């Protein structure tokens, strides 16, 4: 899923500026699961805004609304009937959602309430960890199902480096050395011969270095 962190309340207030009619827009997908921008978090931020502006003696209106997704036009279109009643749409979706809402409502000010951080997994309730950087050319078959691009601090294709100590990365004692994990997994699964293969220099054009990416499936088009 896409994981993010909510922006500090002070930053959100600063971005809102003089806007006092706010449509606070949540998303029922990834940001709900990682506890940053679903219906519940919309409720918390709306409550914070109401408490703050009431304390300041301001007149305001905060409408809470959570869409099934903010990355599909059909759902974004559901707010068309009332979006114009508000000065600003404050989106709690990931960066993709914020942008798609902004594209759909070109005359509205659309602001992000969330910093989108990574593609990851739930380690336990309340804890998430990065697993993928969307490089566009997956090599997990070579690395025992552990991604060195996302999980090695240097994204080394052939590791570990000298900064690996007792299974941990030199950047932080809490961070596992991805290449130690890879070696351990290859051993466990009887694939150590794969470790002998030198992975070639990666062609990063399939990732962000190739510019914004687009995927088309003609057979799915209407």
């Amino acid at each position, binding site marked *: 899923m896409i994981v993010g962190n909510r922006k500090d*309340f002070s930053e959100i207030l600063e971005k809102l500026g003089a806007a006092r009619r706010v449509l606070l827009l949540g998303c029922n997908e990834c940001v709900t699961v990682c506890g940053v921008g679903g219906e519940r978090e919309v409720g*918390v931020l709306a*409550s*914070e805004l109401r408490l703050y502006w009431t304390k300041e003696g301001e007149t305001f209106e905060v409408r809470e609304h959570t869409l099934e997704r903010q990355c599909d036009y059909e759902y974004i279109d559901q707010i068309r009937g009332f979006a114009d009643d508000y000065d600003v749409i404050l989106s709690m979706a990931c960066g993709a959602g914020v942008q798609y809402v902004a594209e759909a409502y070109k005359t509205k000010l659309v602001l992000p309430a969330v910093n989108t951080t990574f593609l990851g997994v739930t380690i336990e309730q309340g804890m998430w960890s990065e697993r993928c950087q969307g490089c566009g050319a997956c090599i997990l078959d070579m690395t025992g199902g552990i991604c060195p691009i996302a999980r090695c601090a240097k994204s080394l294709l052939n590791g570990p480096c000298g900064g690996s100590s007792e299974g941990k990365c030199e950047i932080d004692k809490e961070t596992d050395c991805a290449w130690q994990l890879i070696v351990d997994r290859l051993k466990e699964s009887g694939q150590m011969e794969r470790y002998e293969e030198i992975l070639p220099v990666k062609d990063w054009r399939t990732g962000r270095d190739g510019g914004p990416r687009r995927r088309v499936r003609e057979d799915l088009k209407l």
Partner: protein
Amino acid sequence: MSYPGNVKVVKVPCTGRVDVLLILRAFESGVDGVYLAGCLEGECHFLRGNLRARRRVEYVKGLLEEVGLGGNRVEMFNMSASQGQRFAQFAQEMTERIRLLGPSPVKKGE
């Protein structure tokens, strides 16, 4: 045993039932402070309800600081069902703390 009359008791099956939003809604309705009276740590009938409640209270303290109400307006206390005196003592302590802080700046109708 008596405790200050300004304390309104809201019964829940376990402090683990108390969600962040529930506390925020109380402040939105204009209360001056909220405290949770949970069972002693390690003695939760549902194992970790009171420990979860404490973490949520800590989270709400941060939110109240952010909005300028002050984190001291919310607190978590622990006591057993047989410690009525302790319940009264915490009610007194919290009432005094809130009196010092003054009325909530979001108090309605004022």
